[in-house]
């Protein structure tokens, strides 16, 4: 008996257990970033939505300027500006319902603020008087995540848990182009697709991971194309076109809420400022590139649309500016007060019940503080 005879039938192709999983074509992103403003699609946009987006963009730009100024005055330890990326930040917040969750990275304080977080509390991490300054459950905004892409699996888990509980809650997770190289980005997208979790991943491709340009970050046709490998749709959008970003994200949120699973959205934008105040962008990019992007400014794009179509008059523009100035003045005034610090807080939230060891260390610090105070009182006498 030959080996063939012993084994029975001979199959030149794999057994039927192997099947192509799905047609990848519908998952593929468009060749060009989707745009609304300045195109025929703009006529279909809701004027009220455009006005709301505009007001938030103007506030957002002012917020970025104020936070940057506070850094120069020593009121913030560091500020990673989202200047130029306001359309993504604002649209992310406005695309969600109140019951939904936002998972921001450290550059996304503006998205948190646009969702309702008090700017002072949003900036607590960057001022340095605590880590997370706001109650994550108050506005359903997860703590700002500093380790890149690590918040993405959290968003997947939360969305999955909500679905298990029968709540129609969607999680929107934000990450940058650099973050897409992290392992957690891959694992989060894979889990989300396998579980069909109601999550929307928003990648703000702002051109740089600190100094490293996208060309050194990936060889993928686009970041949106990465979605296809996980079995979810990838969408490519002009990240400076607030109406387009809002539409794409809203569609993805609706799709997720309806049980359609996750979507990866790549918003093509540009980081106008350096990585943070501590960075020097002139070491890795030229003025011409920055100027080209300044000419594709998210506020100008929307302002042009609104004024050209007569949806916002000079008084409306002025009102938006006035509102932003008031927000900035309030932020400036409150951030110029020294935060109240209580060193004892350091021990109180490590565990639900403070351990004996931490109680000892707490007492040690208290004694040090008391000695310090006695010294100061002694000096005064």
């Amino acid at each position, binding site marked *: 008996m030959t080996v063939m005879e012993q084994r029975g039938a001979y199959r030149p192709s794999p057994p039927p257990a192997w099947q192509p999983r799905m047609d990848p074509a519908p998952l593929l992103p468009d060749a060009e970033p989707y745009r609304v403003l300045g195109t025929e699609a703009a006529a279909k946009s809701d004027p009220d939505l455009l006005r709301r987006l505009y007001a938030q963009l103007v506030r957002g730009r002012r917020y970025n300027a104020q936070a940057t100024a506070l850094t120069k005055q020593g009121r913030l330890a560091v500020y990673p500006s989202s200047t130029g990326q306001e359309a993504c930040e604002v649209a992310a917040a406005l695309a969600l319902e109140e019951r939904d969750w936002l998972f921001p990275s450290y550059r996304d304080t503006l998205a948190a603020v646009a969702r309702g977080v008090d700017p002072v509390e949003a900036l607590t991490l960057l001022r340095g008087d*605590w*880590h*997370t300054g706001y*109650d*994550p*459950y108050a506005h359903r905004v*997860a*703590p700002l995540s500093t*380790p890149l892409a*690590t918040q*993405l*699996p*959290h*968003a*997947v*888990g*939360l*969305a*999955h*848990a*909500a679905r*298990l*509980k029968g709540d129609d809650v969607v*999680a929107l997770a934000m990450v940058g182009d650099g973050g897409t190289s992290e*392992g*957690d980005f891959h*694992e*989060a997208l*894979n*889990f989300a697709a*396998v579980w069909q979790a109601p999550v929307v991943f928003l990648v703000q491709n702002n051109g740089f991971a600190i100094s490293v340009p996208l060309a050194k970050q990936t060889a993928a046709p686009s970041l949106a194309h990465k979605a296809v490998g996980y079995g979810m749709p990838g969408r490519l959008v002009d990240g400076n076109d607030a109406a387009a970003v809002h539409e794409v994200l809203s569609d993805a949120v609706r799709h997720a809420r309806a049980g359609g699973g996750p979507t990866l959205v790549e918003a093509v934008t540009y980081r106008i400022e350096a990585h943070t105040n501590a960075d020097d962008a002139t070491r890795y990019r030229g003025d011409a590139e920055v100027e080209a992007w300044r000419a594709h400014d998210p506020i100008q794009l929307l302002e042009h649309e609104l004024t050209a179509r007569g949806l916002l008059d000079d008084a409306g523009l002025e009102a938006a500016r006035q509102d932003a100035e008031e927000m900035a003045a309030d932020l400036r005034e409150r951030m110029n007060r020294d935060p109240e610090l209580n060193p004892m*807080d350091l021990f*109180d*939230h*490590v*565990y*639900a019940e403070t*351990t*004996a*060891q931490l109680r000892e260390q707490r007492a040690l610090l208290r004694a040090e503080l008391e000695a310090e105070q006695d010294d100061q009182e002694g000096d005064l006498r």
Partner: protein
Amino acid sequence: MTTVAVKPATMAQALTRAMRDAMAADPTVHVMGEDVGTLGGVFRVTDGLAKEFGEDRCTDTPLAEAGILGTAVGMAMYGLRPVVEMQFDAFAYPAFEQLISHVSRMRNRTRGRMPLPITVRVPYGGGIGGVEHHSDSSEAYYMATPGLHVVTPATVADAYGLLRQAIASDDPVVFLEPKRLYWSKDSWNPEHPTDVEPIGRAVVRRPGSSATLITYGPSVPVCLEAAEAARAEGWDLEVVDLRSLVPFDDETVCAAVRRTGRALVVHESTGFGGPGGEIAARITERCFHHLEAPVLRVAGFDIPYPPPMLERHHLPGVDRILDAVARLQWEAEG
């Protein structure tokens, strides 16, 4: 009065029962990990849970430990109590960033607003003939991370009791399961599990007057065996089972050392940078004037975990423990 027949149960069975009872008592408890569903885990510790509670409650996840723990964080944020299985000690390392940067810190980061009640079960330690990456003692890494509880049972009753406590805890618990004790048996009644001491308390497993062996997890039975053998040498050894490395029970440990005046820390983990150094330092700081001899350590060698055919030379055994006991400066007594 009826007497309940007490059959011997294995540690693995007690662990399964703990998860089963926790899941039955609390619908927010979810078990997740690699192969935990249909297969029941590579050690069968989650056997039957998917069948009884459904795959939404006992979930086979994709093979990615950071993703498993990272999604568990999100589930805990939404009010669930995930019980995560890391398949083997060394396969938990991809989840380190989630554990160190998020799981351990979220409560503190949010001033207590966002606690993460996650149990991370990690089969650990050697002695089962495992090939490379299947026998690490990784407890020192976890101990060095504030915000985590680090717990390890050595008895069948503790396996059940401590795991129930871990799952009920509002803090993250790294639950280290000594895999060579999975099949150890004890008369333990799953229908009437007795209460055990809380997480954070050490227990004297064997009282003694000559010296105190301080140990945990897989080394507890080894120390008990050594204590029996030591009787022939005229030593009456006390054995303290730490049960909980974090929080650490200074009180029980120091009381024991003050009674005997001599202390020996025994663990599989490497000696250099291992838990024994911390424990010896704590004893010295607190009980110096009660000590008749320096605190000694019997630990695994400072080498990468050996291949299975050589592991017996690495693991602390009865002889190495007794040799160390002999070095506790007994002559100074005379």
